């Protein structure tokens, strides 16, 4: 149960954390902070493109049946 929760939420939580970091980083400063912000926010956007345009089985430890 516990493991399954982590398995389901591992990537969504990671992406949410990157998003929140990206949103706040650009507010915290300019220069390097802006760059970090763009990089962090590009990850969820890239994920949408990857899984949306190249649909498939997704990623995870467990094999789907």
């Amino acid at each position, binding site marked *: 149960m516990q493991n*399954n*929760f982590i398995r*389901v*939420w*591992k*990537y*969504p939580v990671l*992406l*949410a*954390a990157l*998003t*929140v970091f990206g*949103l706040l980083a*650009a*507010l*915290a*400063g*300019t220069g390097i902070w*802006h760059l970090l*912000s*763009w990089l962090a*926010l*590009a990850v*969820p*956007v890239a*994920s*949408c493109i*990857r*899984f*949306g345009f190249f*649909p*498939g*089985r*997704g*990623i*995870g430890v*467990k094999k*789907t*049946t």
Partner: protein
Amino acid sequence: MDVSKKTVRAWFEVHKWTSLICTLFLLMLCITGLPLIFYEEINHLAGNEAEAPEMPLGTPRMKIDDLLVSARKTYPDNVIRYVYWEEDHPNIVTVSMADSIDAPPTVANLVAIDERTGAVLKQPKFDEGFMYAVYKLHVDMFAGIIGKLFLGLMGLLFVVAIISGIMLYSPIMRKFNFGMVRTEKSSRLKWLDMHNMLGVVTLAWALVVGFTGVINTTSEIVLGLWQVGQLSEMVAPYKDAAPLEGDLSPLEDAIEVTQAKEPEMHVSIVAYPGTMFTSKHHYAVFVRGNTPMTSRLIKPALIDAKSGALTDMRTMPWFVNALFLSQPLHFGDYGGMPLKVLWTLFDIVTIIVLISGLYLWFARRKAQLARIEELEEREIAVPA
């Protein structure tokens, strides 16, 4: 039905109903939001923005009171209500005028002036054209504060829809991999997977932009609370003072005395006595900091417009600062062009999530209706 199945069912109902109510409005908000991300750029291209000509670095600025003469010449029968400086438009001061000091807030004749020469660069128009219509649709659907608060309510439903969507994600994805999109079975299944995947990937962005949008709809309420709270405390000693008469003290001095108190900050906007951001006796000089964050957290100083003395300066209360910080987080205008492009992509993904959600509801209904019909036909064919 066991408890967990019942819970899932309940979240499904919450997700369905909150989404159904808010989706069309959210679609409108997402679509009008797209051009608004590039409001500055579009305004610039449309030639509705003042541009200061190149001059040698360090060309001295004229005194603000002398610059204001240009504004008064442009609209001789108007009064000055606000004077402001924009971070990304150096060497330009903009004067907002109206036929009377207590004209409605929507009335503003703007004059953009070159700070070095006093030349009128532009009389920007903000209340006409395509972008204004898009802006009004997005903010209040041309329905004033009622429309604004209504959109706030839709935003709240959107936030609840996202949260209920999160609650549904666990049971749906229990046996599946993250990012899975099944294309081989049916279009409904494909779009269900797409909806879930795009929704979960962008949920933090949608929550932040949705919730800060809701906060932005409370701007009139926040202003009112500030007026009856901090502002009235700050001007309390002037409650029974005689009305202002004659010439006001020089604005240049008011700004100087404020800068002396906060040398690290820059003047962002000055409100003239009698406007909604100050008393009938004070200039309110608002200063801002230098980072993307502190530039939003403006701080008011009140300057007696007769004696020129600074009577009070405070930090804004938390709920005003919360509104100020909600603005960039909603607009996406605080991290250069790459952030705006990312904002656009997130917005497009949200539009896909909304439309696919709507499609899934239709498709599900159709499937359910078909099943009921089938059962009914069977009943008729084989009477029990």
